[in-house]
């Protein structure tokens, strides 16, 4: 819950302006791509949006709920494998496969969340990491679906029988629509009684319990929503790359998701959006310049986080002041 202080108007406008600019730029990207390496631009743009979706889902529990999940990539994997396996079994249509991917993610979130949310701080970090590692090793044993080599998708999911996502531009817009929908839904969620309670539980669980809130239940619901949403990102990622492997769930991937949210600014949603875009764009540019790009990338991340509490969104806010 944000306080209605004197700079609320400014912060509110940033909350509208940043996503507006980003979504407008994304919507126009396929047009701009005509004048450049089209396939590359479209593929990068789609990837940005998929990770933005994953970052937003993580921000729900990390920024709003104060739960530092170090195992969020597990949901990318679950969504990805659901897509891969269902396509493999000839049941890959989005209208069936996506709900199933979401259900599988929700189930995993509910089961692991039930245990995890009872812990706090470092214990929560470690337990979510442990569950993700279990999922990672389990995927390695799925010999029917490629084991450690991963699984190639024969084709992307159709939509109601139509090959709507086959075309890269069409797929781009499907992902954009899903991202916009998810972003809007999350905005409503964080403004809802539930969202306000979640933020308050992060700040003072004892007080919330004393007022009649079931704090465990609130955290579990948030965790399940977040995992389900991240499963959607995994489903889309597998469709984009037409490939899914255990590496989807690697702990490095979970770390990258946290870095995106922190880089952009936690607990704002548009921060996660911006963070994912900035993270992947920076990675793309730096890895183009030098093979030792990680040596530059790390310090930049640390600098932004240290200089601008509140990440990029916080930096932008202070520049506008």
């Amino acid at each position, binding site marked *: *819950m*944000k*306080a*209605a*202080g004197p700079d609320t108007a400014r912060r509110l406008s940033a909350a509208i302006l940043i996503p507006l600019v980003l979504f407008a730029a994304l919507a126009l990207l396929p047009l701009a791509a005509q004048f450049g390496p089209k396939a590359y631009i479209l593929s990068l743009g789609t990837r940005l949006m998929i990770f933005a979706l994953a970052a937003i889902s993580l921000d729900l529990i990390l920024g709003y709920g104060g739960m530092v999940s170090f195992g969020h990539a597990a949901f990318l994997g679950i969504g990805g494998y659901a897509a891969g396996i269902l396509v493999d079994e000839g049941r890959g249509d989005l209208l069936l496969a996506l709900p199933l991917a979401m259900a599988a993610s929700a189930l995993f979130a509910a089961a692991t969340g039930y245990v995890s949310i009872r812990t706090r701080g470092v214990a929560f970090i470690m337990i979510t990491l442990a569950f993700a590692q279990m999922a990672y090793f389990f995927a390695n044993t799925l010999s029917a679906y490629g084991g450690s080599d991963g699984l190639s998708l024969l084709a992307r999911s159709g939509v109601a029988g139509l090959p709507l996502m086959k075309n890269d531009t069409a797929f781009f817009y499907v992902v954009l629509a899903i991202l916009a929908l998810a972003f809007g839904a999350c905005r*409503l*969620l964080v*403004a*809802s*009684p*539930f969202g*306000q*309670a979640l*933020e*308050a539980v992060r*700040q*003072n669980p*004892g*007080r*919330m*319990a*004393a*007022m*009649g*809130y*079931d*704090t465990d239940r*609130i955290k579990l*619901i948030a965790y399940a929503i977040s995992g389900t949403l991240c499963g959607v990102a995994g489903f889309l990622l597998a469709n984009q790359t037409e490939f899914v492997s255990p590496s989807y769930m690697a702990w490095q991937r979970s770390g990258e998701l946290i870095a995106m949210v922190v880089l952009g600014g936690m607990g704002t949603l548009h921060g996660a959006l911006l963070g994912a875009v900035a993270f992947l764009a920076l990675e793309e540019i730096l890895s183009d310049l030098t093979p030792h790009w990680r040596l530059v990338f790390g310090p930049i991340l640390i600098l932004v986080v240290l200089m601008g509490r509140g990440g990029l969104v916080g930096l932008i806010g202070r520049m506008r002041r």
Partner: protein
Amino acid sequence: MTEAPALALDGLTKSFGSLVVSDAVSLSVRPGEIHALIGPNGAGKTTLIHQVSGHLRPDAGRIALAGTDVTAMAPHRRARLGLSRTFQITSVIPAATARQNVVLALRPATAAGLRLWPDPAGDAALAARAGETLALVGLEGRIDIPASDLSHGERRALELAMALAPSPRVLLLDEPMAGTGREESAHLLRTLAALKGRCAMLLVEHDMHAVFSLADRVSVLVGGRIVASGAPDAVRADPAVRAAYLGDEAALC
């Protein structure tokens, strides 16, 4: 049959290691009654309040709210049964405004309690009710200030507003006067006096003026044990109490 007490503790016992902090504590608060619990620092008053609210589990004994055994119940379920509390160390939601804090306190009793999408109409109604409660504790001019920007005394008043807002059956107050200024504590005293009879209160307080002007009954806790309990005047005159507790604070009596 007489009405069940609003709150009844029966043989409540709790130890931290070898330190017994609640030693077979039994006491009751009748509906509308103010029962003050006094005792020196470290006597176990706060620990007792934590057990009543469910933030700590007793090792033995029973807690009943209006006749319902709540000993094993989670704090939020006790709150739903009409139990409210304040904390000795002020406990509010820092980033939320005064009004939002009180709205949060009101919501669990409403249909929109944990709705997943916004509820503008419900929010407006709750905001209006929150404004009234904030006026009651003297915060009418500070409604839109984040709790973290309020003064210490204002935060204590806010916490009281959060505890009062849902019209509790039983109110637990852990040293509400502590650290408040002279004017603020006078206001607080008037607020509590005005509430008298509307909800049962278990009042932990060091301010003897407040205790003896508000309480219907006083119990004295020393080393985890109730050493005296009764009408204020009787307790004040009890030689054992004077020796154990009031003696060194004679000026207060």
